[in-house]
């Protein structure tokens, strides 16, 4: 899927790869697939910037100088969650004083505000709560579609789909079919965390396993939905676990072509059961962005998710393989409960400035990466 080189000699010169990366530079320039071992080497090579240049070459082949952003809003209908993942600062038990449950009207009200602000997408994910069942979500999707037919509904992680299936005693496929019938347009990529079973059992023991996660996305893709994929890094996982995770995604993508975007998620330790951990450094943030871009040769987009990275690291990630700056997210709770210091929202003007400053051309996209044309173009 990565275009062949037009001038491989020039590309090689530009990479200025150190001698012990020369073989990988050749592979990258000639758009050859990288192996598990290649991925681990890229994680361990001391020259972070040389690895970044490899990823930047791939990004440029795929996207030229274009970097996208979208205008969206997150709605998290409840923070009550049965899962109690060790890395999470968002989930509550129902008796906690700061547990909350939105009504259908609350969600519709928030969606109305986001439409008024010009959002093209609403991103709905929530805790696993027995009262928020398949019927509740069918109703809210129908209500949203009826009132806001143009608003793209990107909802539910694979983990939620598996949970809703269990509650309703039907298959995940049935859940997906019913949600699609009610108005679901695409799925976000959350809940993937780290697929490796040993790591997964330590950070999110009660969550669906890797095979279930992969299966839900396979089914969603077969039913015509596009989805994203994520990876939570910077906690207790090692280089091999990150490479393994991304290669499992690559294998599914070879089968379905349904993933649009890979989103590396930086772990934020504050207020979680893993708060003794330091969290990832900026170097690891950029390394994960770059190595993922290089390994995922069949996924179009890699996101610099500024909510998790912070504006500064996210901007630098645009030079390490990322081509998407995510959205102007209003009211993001999950990461901010874990101590993220990024602002709740960046203005469109600031996002466009950051993209331009990084030497790229910004464009607004919708969820499916079509350019959005507005009557009044932003500055």
């Amino acid at each position, binding site marked *: 899927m990565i275009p062949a080189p037009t001038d491989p000699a020039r590309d090689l010169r530009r990479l200025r790869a150190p001698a012990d990366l020369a073989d990988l530079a050749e592979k990258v320039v000639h758009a050859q697939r990288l192996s598990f071992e290649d991925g681990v080497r890229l994680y361990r090579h001391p020259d972070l910037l040389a690895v970044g240049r490899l990823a930047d070459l791939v990004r440029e082949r795929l996207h030229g100088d274009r970097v996208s952003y979208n205008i969206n809003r997150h709605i998290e209908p409840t923070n009550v969650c049965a899962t109690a993942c060790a890395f999470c600062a968002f989930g509550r038990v129902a008796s906690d004083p700061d547990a909350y449950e939105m009504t259908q009207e609350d969600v519709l009200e928030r969606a109305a505000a986001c439409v008024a602000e010009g959002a093209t997408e609403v991103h709905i994910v929530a805790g696993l709560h027995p009262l928020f069942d398949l019927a509740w979500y069918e109703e809210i999707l129908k209500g949203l579609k009826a009132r806001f037919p143009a608003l793209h509904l990107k909802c539910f992680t694979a983990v939620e789909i598996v949970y809703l299936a269990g509650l309703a005693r039907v298959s995940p496929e049935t859940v997906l079919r019913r949600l699609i019938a009610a108005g679901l347009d695409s799925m976000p990529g959350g809940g993937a965390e780290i697929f490796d079973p040993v790591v997964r059992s330590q950070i999110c023991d009660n969550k669906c396993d890797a095979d279930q996660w992969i299966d839900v996305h396979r089914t969603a893709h077969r039913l015509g939905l596009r989805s994203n994929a994520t990876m939570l890094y910077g906690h207790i996982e090692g280089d091999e676990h990150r490479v393994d995770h991304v290669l499992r995604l690559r294998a599914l993508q070879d089968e379905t072509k349904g993933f649009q975007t890979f989103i590396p998620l930086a772990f934020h330790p504050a207020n979680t059961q893993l708060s003794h951990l330091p969290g990832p450094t900026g170097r690891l943030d950029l390394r994960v962005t770059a190595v993922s871009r290089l390994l995922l040769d069949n996924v179009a987009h890699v996101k610099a998710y500024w909510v998790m990275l*912070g504006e500064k690291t996210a901007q630098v990630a645009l030079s390490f393989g990322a081509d998407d700056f995510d959205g102007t997210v209003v009211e993001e709770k999950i990461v901010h409960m874990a101590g993220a210091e990024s602002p709740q929202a960046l203005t469109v003007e600031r996002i466009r400035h950051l993209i331009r400053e990084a030497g790229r051309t910004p464009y607004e996209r919708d969820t499916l990466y079509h350019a959005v044309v507005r009557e009044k173009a932003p500055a």
Partner: protein
Amino acid sequence: MTATATSALEAAYDRAAAGERLSTEDAVVLLAQGDLLTLGSLAAAARQRRNPGRTVTYIVDRNVNYTNVCVTYCSFCAFYRPPGHEEGYVQTYEQVAARLEELRAQGGRQVLLQGGHHPDLPLAWYEGLLRSMRERFPEINVHGFSPPEITHFAEIWKMPVREVVARLKAAGLGSIPGGGGEILVDRVRKVIAPMKATSDEWLGVMREAHLQGLSTSATMMFGHVETLAERVDHMDRLRRLQDETHGFTAFIAWTYQNPNTNLLRKVKDPAGSHVYLKTVAVARLFLDNVPHVQSSWVTQGPKVGQLALDFGCDDMGGTMMEENVVSAAGTTYRMTPEEMDRLILAAGWEPRRRTTRYEVLPPHLPTEVPA
């Protein structure tokens, strides 16, 4: 890009890679067209040529801002208060000593002593302050004032700069920080700090300090109203003076910080981390005669502060137990010496403490004993 532009860039890359002195034209081309990661690698190599190894230094220090009363009214400053303002203060010798006691408890080696441009504190007050600090805290170097403060003293005390420097040095001043450098181009200074020392005055104070044996640092505050060429002019003026005196220990660049300042109206888009990293990389390449380049974690945050070490920086500055000037403008990054160690280690480097003159102190962390 035209063929000429490409070849100018390639030629500048080649000169940088060979460790040759860059022209101002080279530096402008690199800032305007250079690839961030290519510049980073070239700067990292230049750093290795000058300061080989995996050591990253920092100093345990603290800021003492003895007064916030100031008559200079810089548009980018959120710290100062005009004379007579109810929030104005001047610290007593005892208040300053109490702060140095806290620094001593941390093993601190430097106090960054700076204040607003107070209209009527006399020389004797400063001499008394410096003497009392030297007597009670001989191990703590007073890294004090800044060229605009020295120029201000010369004016209110009606005394040549040479004599101001000599008197303060005799009383205990050990070195002068490079604050107030901003951009050493008078067109820019007229916009952002019209009442502050001119660029010639700033450089004149530094020349005098170097001639009298005081070391100083050099700074640059960028990302406001200056052009790329003016940013390079600034570095060029520093490089010329350094060729003459060799008195600068380090170069420290930071981006103009946004909120709570009057300059905001003139700067719509404060510089991001991309421009910051690119600028420190080009500075490392261009300032071939300045020994050290500091990472500004105070303005960039710990993550980009660490990353700057991959872009040619070899020093993390000070731990600054209290920082009032940048934080008044809304940026509040803080760090203990232990956090600084962790930060440097996590980025894959070996932390070592240093003095103001960049003498590396003996290792302070347990080292692994070979089996």
